[in-house]
């Protein structure tokens, strides 16, 4: 793994100095701040709209902290996952098409180090962004609501994070396999939607990583979804996807 630390340092510096700092962390913080506010004011807005002209009165329950947390989790599961697809799709293919891969791979940087630094840097970015987003969400929610189900929320976020960390490795594999950024993004989206659709089958949700997104929502509701096999298969899947990406990249010509 010659050059891993140096290349990982380059990846982290690249995140800090380029648009990448605004995508995952920026989106996560944006949803952390706006989620609780939207949860608080959405019922008010709906009531105002419903009573303005028609005279119809809609009875809506008072918003809760759980809804604020649910809003954040929903945004993580949808928009942040799409952002992971877009940023992950070009992680390896982008370096190939720009010619930077040639320049670094002819130095003492091993191919496994190149691929794994991509995976690890993106995982670090997701973990830090999610932790910051979670803290901010809890802070904003505490300022607006009473009775915060913090433990359930943190459990739900942690389950989503496990899926996201696994998915980063899958996206890196897509970027190694498919030389165009668009093609890699398409493959990543196909995988993501396939997993989400498959999770509708209880047996798949119980025994595979596909059950993690739904499990994060159930955890927030205070339920105890089956987690052992979804977490184990996500861990195995992450290692397998990373190993496959390394193996393929070592055989490819640049």
């Amino acid at each position, binding site marked *: 793994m010659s*050059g891993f630390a140096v290349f990982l340092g380059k990846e982290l510096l690249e995140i800090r100095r380029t648009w990448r700092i605004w995508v995952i962390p920026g989106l996560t913080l944006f949803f952390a701040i706006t989620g609780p506010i939207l949860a608080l004011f959405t019922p008010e807005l709906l009531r105002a709209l419903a009573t303005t002209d028609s005279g119809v009165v809609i009875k809506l329950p008072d918003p809760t902290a759980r809804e604020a947390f649910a809003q954040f989790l929903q945004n993580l599961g949808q928009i942040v996952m799409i952002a992971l697809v877009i940023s992950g799709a070009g992680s390896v293919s982008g370096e190939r098409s720009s010619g*930077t*891969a*040639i*320049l670094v*791979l*002819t130095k*003492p940087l091993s191919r496994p180090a190149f691929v794994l630094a991509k995976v690890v840097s993106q995982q670090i970015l997701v973990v830090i962004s999610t932790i910051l987003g979670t803290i901010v969400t809890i802070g904003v929610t505490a300022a607006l609501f009473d009775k915060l189900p913090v433990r359930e929320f943190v459990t739900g976020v942690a389950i989503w994070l496990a899926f996201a960390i696994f998915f980063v490795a899958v996206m890196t594999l897509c970027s190694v396999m498919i030389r165009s950024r668009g093609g890699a993004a398409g493959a990543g989206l196909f995988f993501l939607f396939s997993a989400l659709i498959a999770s509708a089958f209880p047996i798949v949700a119980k025994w595979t990583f596909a059950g993690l997104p739904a499990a994060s929502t159930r955890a927030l509701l205070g339920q105890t979804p089956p987690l052992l096999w979804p977490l184990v298969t996500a861990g195995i899947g992450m290692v397998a996807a990373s190993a496959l990406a390394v193996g393929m990249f070592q055989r490819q*010509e*640049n």
Partner: protein
Amino acid sequence: MTTSTAAVEITHLTKRFGKALALDDISLSVPPGSVFGFLGPNGAGKTTTLRILTGLATPTSGTATVLGQDVRHAGHDVRRDIGFLPDVPGFYPWMTARDFLRFAGNLFRLDSRTLAARIDSLLDMAGLGSVSAKIGAYSRGMKQRLGMAQALINAPSLLLLDEPTSALDPIGRREVLEMIASLRGRTTVFFSTHILGDVERVCDTAAILHQGRVVADAPVADLKRRAGAEWIVVEVDGDARALADRMAGAAWLRTAESSGSSLRLAVLDLAQAQRAIPEAVAGLGLGLRRFELAEASLEEVFVELVGGPRP
């Protein structure tokens, strides 16, 4: 590890891309410390050869050794002694030149003091010492000069350069060629180019690659002597075109190129030419100012060997 003393040794190397044959059984040897020109028209296989030498591509058959190690099994030990500049170097646009050289130096695990000193001297050499802009704002020539600098960050024993002067203006080109020449004896330089003048200026030895085959591999002076014709330069006190027209079609003459009052002739039979040319000059009533044997240029050798227009 082989016992080869050559800096680069290529033996019966073949590379196929599907049905296309990019390299066809090429063999050549580059002595250590020499400046080696790898000459050929676009598409001849020069970049493919360099990609194999740097480990970016694998040969279909044959072997290539770099600094005594087979490139297919060479680890990072050999990469630490190699500098490489691709034909179009790709850089991270968000970095400065200093950032990139520091990053490259760290990959070679240079200690911080050595690296700092080397970065300063290489930036000065590349004319980028006072440039603080990000690389994304660089011209192609600036990127090429930075490419040279990064290829030298590890003070390599072998410098592999793919078309290093193709994007440079005349001044930049001269500077790079002078820098390459200054490495002679200390570093082996293997550079591919389609610019014949560059090879003539700095190379000790050159190989000419055409359609994936090495058609010549020898010291530059020997290559020039290999041209099938001998060369004569004639200068008269009138228009040399009339003289060229008068001699056109002669059995001993291959080509005649006139320019003003001078004429450069490729001749197949020197003895006949030495008699016929003064006769033709006299027949036209011209005065003969100069008549001398000349050396073939590398361009002429190239055209002779490749059998087509110059690249």
